[in-house]
């Protein structure tokens, strides 16, 4: 899977930018605020319909304009022309593949697999459990469109069920209690499906992160990921334990009018040499871990779908020592197509791969090739 051509209109600083890419490494060089991250943002939109840094769509429209549009040509045996358009007034995003509109987000996400490594990744190891769930969900969703749909449904069930718990707290009617039983059953069914996917993911990912961490770190440290759902070991366990826990928290859930049990409260814990990273990790260990997670995501997705995702790397070399930069440079030789932003070239001479690489200078929303 490669992105060969990109047309950006009225998107932040880029009024009208056309880009042709290398199948291998593409470097965007420019100072801060010149529009190089914007190009990664545009690519991410085309792959996922979502914003790379969780900014609002409206914010991405150039100042004084009404809509942005992005047009990309992907190649995967055949050419896919993709187009995304966002209009401020209607606050609607429209997505087209080969000029046919696609409405179901689950049928877009994962079609053009993508991995992004950005400064915001610090939240994956240093942020809240929700940040880690988001990291895991974004990977599984790209691999399983059904998972994404189940997840969206699950979130809806949570909202409905907490509204119902609130009503039951106010008035304990038989009919409401019966309804709760129905919502609990759906919560149980959807939630179990989510946990099953997460368990498979955690098991596989654990193997992959071990290999990848060692390629980036100079220390002989062993990383791992722990995921545990109510001590379940088999598929049958999950539903039973989930059900038992719901029974146990039945009164509490009503008193607090909250969903207290389920995968929306899951925690993924990272370890280095069996010590919890979040509690004991140094800044350097966190940074290395974050990079290893994204490379692991890349190889995990490659293993599952058999095609290399597009790799986006935003400003990652800035605070790394020479040795680490060199190791990542080595690594870049085996990923497929990547898009990398840099503030300057001088310090990063040793990361180039081949004469096929493209160096593109970005200056105030305009581009020129080296």
């Amino acid at each position, binding site marked *: 899977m490669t992105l060969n051509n990109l047309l950006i209109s009225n998107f932040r600083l880029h009024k009208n930018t056309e880009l042709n890419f290398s199948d291998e490494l593409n470097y965007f060089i420019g100072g801060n605020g010149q529009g190089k991250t914007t190009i990664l943002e545009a690519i991410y939109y085309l792959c996922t319909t979502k914003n790379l840094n969780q900014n609002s769509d409206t914010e991405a429209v150039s100042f004084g304009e009404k809509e942005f549009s992005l047009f990309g040509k992907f190649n995967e045996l055949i050419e896919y022309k993709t187009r995304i358009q966002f209009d401020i007034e209607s606050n609607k995003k429209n997505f087209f593949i080969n000029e046919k509109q696609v409405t*179901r987000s*689950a*049928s877009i996400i*994962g079609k053009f697999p993508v991995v992004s490594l950005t400064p915001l990744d610090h939240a994956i190891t240093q942020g809240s459990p929700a940040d880690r769930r988001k990291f895991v969900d974004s990977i599984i969703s790209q691999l*399983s*469109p*059904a*998972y*994404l*749909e*189940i997840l969206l*449904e699950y979130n*809806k*069930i949570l*909202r*409905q*069920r907490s*509204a*119902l718990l*609130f*009503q039951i707290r106010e008035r304990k009617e038989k*009919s*409401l209690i*019966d*309804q709760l*039983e*129905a*919502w609990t*059953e*759906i919560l149980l069914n959807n939630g179990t*499906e989510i946990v099953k996917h997460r368990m498979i993911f955690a098991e596989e990912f654990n193997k992959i992160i071990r290999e990848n961490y060692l390629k980036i770190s100079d220390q002989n440290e062993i990383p791992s990921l722990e995921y545990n759902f109510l001590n379940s070991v088999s598929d049958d366990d999950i539903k039973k334990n989930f059900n038992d826990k719901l029974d146990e928290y039945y009164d509490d859930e009503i008193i607090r009018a909250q969903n207290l049990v389920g995968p929306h409260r899951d925690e993924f814990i990272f370890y280095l040499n069996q010590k919890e990273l979040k509690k004991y990790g140094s800044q350097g260990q966190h940074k290395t871990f974050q990079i290893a997670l994204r490379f692991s995501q890349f190889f995990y997705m490659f293993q599952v779908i058999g095609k290399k995702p597009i790799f986006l790397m935003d400003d990652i070399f800035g605070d790394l020592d020479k040795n680490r930069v060199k190791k990542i440079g080595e690594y870049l030789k085996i990923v497929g197509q990547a898009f990398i932003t840099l503030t300057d070239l001088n310090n990063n001479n040793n990361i180039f791969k081949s004469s096929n690489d493209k160096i593109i200078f970005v200056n105030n929303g305009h581009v020129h090739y080296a």
Partner: protein
Amino acid sequence: MILPEPLEILIEELNKLPSIGRKTAQRLALHLLKSQKEDISNLVNSLISMRDNIKICSKCFNVSVDDECEICKSPKRDNSVICVVEEVSDVIAIEKTNEFNGLYHVLGGVLSPLSGKDAASLKIDELVKRVSNSNIKEIILALNPDTEGESTALYLAKILKRFNIKITRIARGLPIGGDIEFADEATIGRAVLGRIILE
């Protein structure tokens, strides 16, 4: 440009209708502006006649000219089977298939605690009454395959259990008539996850 007031009012009224956006409303209004006066009268009269003459069937809550609808009155229909649907539009859709010969029950929506739709605001008591007063053998739950439809189906199955009748749900999954390879990934994925055991 500011439109003449009568035109603006018409556009506003059309815009209130479901799935009619501002642009479509404007196109319809401009089209009507060019129509013959007679055509306009026919349209207006049909709207008023519909409002005056269409009632809701007292038994199944389908649309009807009389107190009971054509389906409920028909001697050819099997009155031991009731198909429960959300809206009148679902009755129309199922009737078109010519596959169902029983009666209907229009709930008027689905359970949704978030939007304040509870059992009392749907025709659920009426359904229970119908089941207890007649010789119903089967209830088919034909609700949409979303979370609200599913929870409503589970709720109905629960409260109808005591009547000892057959309760079925219409199947969800792959659309028929298309090959698996042409269905979208999410649909196929869900169908695989929701697979059933063949004894």
